[in-house]
């Protein structure tokens, strides 16, 4: 366990680094297009990290992550646009982002989480392909509802009007149509990606993450050891959706980004990109999701850059019928296929890049005694011996008193396993 000083120092260091990035980012990456790409890569990392909770850790298969991203993006855009107007509009200074961005992140995360809960409920009954179809359906419904809201009777009824005000296919560009204010600079983007990675890491390496992986391996066995599958599955959906919502909210207010939020940004292709990032990096791996998010974003961009090469342009001049955009997808797909052949489990599998072994070493226990090598009489004799020491062990499991250690030295468990269960927290289930 790291000390409080260590923690505070690490936190301060990270904050300093993120603040430093905010002000030096334009010097580090002078080209605006690459700057935008770097920020977009970070947003994609958050999306991949959140999808990794469902698809990697929980072993469910969601192919509708774009739905959550979209809900977060629209929520974030609406909140940011209106808040910006209330604050007087105009520029988007860094100081003001401290009012706008927390609200954007919070609301985008919360609204997406609510939808995550609703979509998570069918996951209790559906598995594999069937669940995938539900998630896909959800994402498509979201995209089509927004995209078609202003056609037909767009002016009738409160819900219709509200939806139509989101701009339909043209997209939403703030309440006054001048574009969503772009408050999310490097500070917020890199800050969010740091926090998201930390959260995903801590989720995975906690009892919660362990139980989620157990559930993925065998649901019946999990239930047989007291794990409530319902709770864990729905929680994983809610957390994953909240993460995606935050990624969407950031995407909407991304500096140097697209100032309008359009439904087509959240098509099936977006869900598929997120899945690619997770699987490419290694399903279930946190560092894999980070790696996958960055790699996919930059690979796509690199292939785009290929189009600008003189040799490619010369080729295009010779064969005018050559569709460079289609060719780009062929190259992208070939890279993915190649990687999957070389590394079927993704770049990292379920492993992590930095993972120190930190297991609690057991010191109190004595040499092991194989269980069957006793007769009933021996055991009875031992039990009566322990009768005297038993009083000191009332603490039950994990007691560190001298009595407990004495018992452990004999290769026995602390008392209080079966008989004293009344005092244990489990007692509440009994009523």
């Amino acid at each position, binding site marked *: 366990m790291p000390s409080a000083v260590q923690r505070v120092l690490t936190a301060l260091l990270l904050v300093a680094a993120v603040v430093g990035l905010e002000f030096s980012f334009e010097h580090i990456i002078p080209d605006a297009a690459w700057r935008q790409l770097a920020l977009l890569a970070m947003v994609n990392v958050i999306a991949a990290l959140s999808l990794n909770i469902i698809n990697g850790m929980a072993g469910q298969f969601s192919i509708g992550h774009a739905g959550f991203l979209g809900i977060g993006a629209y929520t974030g855009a609406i909140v940011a646009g209106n808040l910006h107007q209330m604050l007087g509009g105009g520029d988007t200074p860094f100081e003001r982002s401290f009012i706008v961005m927390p609200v954007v992140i919070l609301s985008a995360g919360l609204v997406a989480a609510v939808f995550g809960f609703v979509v998570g409920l069918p996951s209790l009954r559906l598995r594999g392909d069937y669940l995938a179809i539900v998630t896909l359906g959800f994402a498509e419904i979201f995209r089509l509802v927004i995209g078609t809201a202003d056609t037909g009777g767009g002016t009738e009824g409160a819900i219709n009007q509200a939806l139509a005000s989101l701009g339909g296919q043209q997209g939403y560009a703030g309440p006054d149509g001048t574009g969503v204010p772009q408050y999310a600079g490097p500070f917020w983007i890199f800050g969010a990606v740091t926090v998201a990675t930390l959260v995903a890491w801590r989720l995975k390496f906690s*009892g*919660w993450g362990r139980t989620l992986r*157990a559930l993925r*391996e065998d649901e019946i066995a999990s*239930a*047989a*050891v007291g794990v409530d599958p319902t709770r864990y599955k729905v929680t994983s959906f809610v957390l994953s959706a909240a993460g995606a919502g935050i990624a969407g909210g950031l995407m909407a207010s991304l500096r140097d980004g697209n100032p309008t939020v359009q439904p087509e940004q959240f098509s099936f292709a977006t869900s598929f990109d997120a899945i690619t990032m997770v699987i490419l990096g290694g399903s279930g791996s946190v560092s894999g999701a980070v790696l996958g998010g960055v790699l996919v974003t930059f690979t796509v961009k690199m292939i785009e850059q290929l189009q600008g090469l003189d040799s490619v342009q010369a080729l295009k001049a010779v064969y005018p019928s050559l569709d460079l955009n289609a060719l780009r997808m062929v190259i992208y797909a070939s890279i993915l296929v190649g990687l999957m052949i070389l590394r079927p489990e993704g770049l990292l599998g379920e492993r992590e890049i930095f993972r120190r072994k930190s297991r*609690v070493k057991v010191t109190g226990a004595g040499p092991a005694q194989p269980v069957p090598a006793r007769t009933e009489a021996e055991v009875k004799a031992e039990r009566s011996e322990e009768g005297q020491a038993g009083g000191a062990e009332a603490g039950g499991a*994990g007691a560190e008193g001298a009595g407990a250690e004495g018992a452990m030295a004999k290769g026995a468990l602390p008392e209080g396993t079966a008989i004293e269960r009344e005092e244990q927290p489990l007692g509440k289930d009994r009523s």
Partner: protein
Amino acid sequence: MSLELQHVTKRFGGLRAVGDVSFTVPERSIFGLIGPNGAGKTTVFNLITGVYKHDEGSIRFQGTDLGPLKPSQIARFGVARTFQNIRLFGQLTVLENALVACESQRRSGLVAALLRTPAFYRDEAAMTRRAMELLEVFNLDGVADEISTSLSYGDQRRLEIARAMMLEPKLLLLDEPAAGMNYGEAEGLKKQILWLRERFGLTVVLVEHNMQVVMSVCEHLHVLDHGETLAQGTPEVVRRHPRVLAAYLGEDVEEERGSADSAGAAGGGAAEEAS
């Protein structure tokens, strides 16, 4: 009385898998549930642990009706089980397998895990210590960091029991623990079951084909055939029961030899008869 089944019936469509089965398992006894393949023994286990819901009758454990409870609640209530075909958490380590089983006893929640509060580390350390102690009892502490599916068959079986014991159960249901074991291993298992009962004050219900184990360990037997009760009583009584002999050895012995598994059971039964 620890466990009490009254007129329990379970149907799968038109098939009556368990029909009107009643038995009571006394506190701290070792109770054997036997019968030919397909007799409904594992179905009874699944009914007790809530994997299936029974259509009729009642299942009570220490006076509480288990009917409306979910499998996870029944497990937390003190009913642990192992499975006929081992169900470990494959990609998890041996230690992690054991830790999952005490996750429901953790006091600190998800927020504590995210903030890595002292309570989180304290819980994690206490759980790990308890798991390691139990693994040591089952002689698995040396392989605590191995992926569970890499263990030998016998170790996997023992890990499953260890994992069940992490729940601190009052009732342990063992589904064919001796399956695939040779004579020596089965002898070891017998001692292990007796030891578990003594050490933890457990009640044990055993589904088993190995008559060497069943006849020497169990104090009470309940024989099922085609989901119906065939006989019950002490091993002495059951062993001489004409209907049991008929079900196991068959009117036509040759026919029964067809299935390898029941042939083994019949062989075991016959050996018991001869002695």
